[in-house]
């Protein structure tokens, strides 16, 4: 019996629509803690770290639409982070100095680029999909690196503003400070995560899971698998772009590094580390990985070795990632208690 429930947990075979219900209280508690946090800890360095965690969590969550839900491992997801970051910066600096203009540009540009390259990528699957996404992302990296006049080349773009936001023209709110930008990020990411969750728990989301399990059979349910995958690719990219749109004003400057393949690799790592079979797993992975980097960097600059080792342990002993591991243990405890 133990085997069965383990499989159920780590393969996410609980009813699609209820898979987050158990985690709902936890999620709300986490959100409440995130709201209270700046009031409890005045440390600005930590606040910045958390802002980064929130933004990168969105990036990992968006990647998991492909990896965990649709069964497509993209090795080029950072391209959308970068495209979103450049698009929002250029929009705010040259078109209209509003954060909304920036975020809209980041979402749209990432979505449009995803549509354009998705037409090629989506025809492939498995390793070939991974390779072509990697290739495209490196192409975008090269463009960002050499297109000096627009992207600032190697140096990137600096002086990225955090314009005040106006609430229905009634009042202006500054998000320029650490606390203001933290809350702004938290709200946007929470809304984006909720939207993603709705999408993944809709009939469309159920079809993505079915495609992950058996694309051929989905075809024989009368659905054009190709279009569903393409839609998933675009949605994933749009949310990834939004992460970029939040990241640029956060860091204040951007450079081509944002699109580099190691950044994509890191995003895949945090997604797997956290757990691809639960909605919030990738956010947990992002949190752990960024914390680790921050802590280990104090002792050695070779933090990637430590992180790599942890990932190996994770893959060997907790293939469902951190969240998968914890859920499995918890369900064992509860089953023991109910006997």
């Amino acid at each position: 019996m133990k085997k069965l429930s383990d499989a159920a947990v780590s393969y996410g075979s609980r009813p699609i629509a209820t898979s987050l219900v158990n985690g709902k209280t936890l999620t709300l508690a986490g959100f409440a803690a995130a709201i209270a946090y700046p009031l409890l800890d005045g440390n600005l360095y930590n606040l910045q770290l958390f802002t980064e965690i929130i933004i990168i969590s969105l990036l990992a969550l968006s990647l998991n639409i492909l990896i965990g839900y649709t069964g497509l491992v993209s090795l080029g997801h950072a391209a959308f982070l970068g495209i979103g970051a450049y698009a929002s910066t250029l929009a705010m600096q040259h078109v209209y100095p509003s954060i909304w203009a920036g975020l809209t540009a980041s979402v749209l540009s990432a979505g449009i680029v995803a549509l354009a390259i998705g037409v090629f990528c989506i025809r492939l699957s498995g390793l070939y999909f991974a390779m072509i996404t990697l290739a495209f992302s490196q192409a975008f990296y090269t463009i960002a690196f050499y297109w000096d006049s627009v992207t600032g080349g190697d140096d990137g773009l600096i002086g990225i503003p955090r314009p005040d936001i106006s609430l229905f023209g009634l009042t202006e709110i500054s998000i320029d400070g650490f606390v203001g930008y933290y809350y702004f990020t938290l709200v946007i990411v929470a809304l984006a995560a909720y939207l993603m969750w709705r999408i993944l728990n809709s009939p469309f989301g159920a079809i993505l899971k079915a495609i992950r399990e058996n694309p051929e059979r989905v075809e024989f349910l009368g659905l054009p698998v190709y279009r569903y995958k393409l839609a998933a690719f675009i949605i994933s990219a749009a949310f990834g772009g939004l992460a970029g749109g939040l990241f640029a004003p956060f860091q204040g400057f951007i450079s081509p590094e944002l699109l580099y393949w190691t950044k994509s690799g890191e995003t895949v790592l945090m997604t797997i580390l956290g757990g691809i079979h639960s909605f919030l797993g990738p956010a947990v992975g992002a949190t752990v990985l960024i914390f680790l980097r921050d802590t280990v960097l104090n002792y050695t600059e070779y933090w990637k070795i430590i992180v790599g080792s942890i990932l190996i342990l994770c893959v060997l002993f907790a293939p469902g990632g951190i969240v998968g591991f914890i859920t499995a243990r918890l369900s064992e405890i509860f089953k023991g208690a109910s006997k």
Partner: protein
Amino acid sequence: MTILETRKLSRRFGALNAVSDVSLSLEAGEVRAIIGPNGAGKTTLFNLITGKLAPTGGKVIFEGADVTGVPAHALVRRGIGRSFQITNIFPRLSVFENILVGVLAGRGKTTNLFASLLSFETEAAEAREILDRVELGAKAGLPVSALSHGERRNLELGLTLALNPRLILLDEPTAGMSVEETASTVALIRRVAQSATVLFTEHDMGIVFSIADNISVLHQGSIIAEGTPEEIKGNRTVQVAYLGEEA
């Protein structure tokens, strides 16, 4: 009325003529069996009719329209459903989810991005009804991994029925089933056949003779005989080529 027609349908794999010049004609409401030894080309023929494979020659006509080359998903939309010889379901979804996904697809609900899955009560009710029909009602909440081989075959069948096809192709629906499972599946096919046209392959001649209105005999890719069960039983060519020494 003719629902399905194949005209000189052929498929080569290299030098092998897996299906050659097969011309079939099915009346709406008919139950037709395709029999033939392993390797005769039955599955390949199904793959050609359902758009899984492109023919190297010939045509497929469904409800009067030439559907040769139409992609598989579009043929399903037009009303052709199939089950597979090798069970082809969603292994890490629950039994209920497997069928629900089929019902949602059949009703064109799957482009809905924002409505909660829980709000599709009509579809959920239909999914439960289908599970009852294939005798899996009691196992709805289980993962597919908890099902026996025969139960998975039934789930496969249920997934096909979820789409309400007018023409149903069943590729060895009872393969590997126990005697009791076979009996209930045969009963189910009989019921399904009351409202749809059925084209099926089956190794058990008892089953074939008891449910088929007509039988086509496939041998090395070609149809060598066609007729009612009685005619096939008495056919010399078939006895020599297929029923062999037993006859």
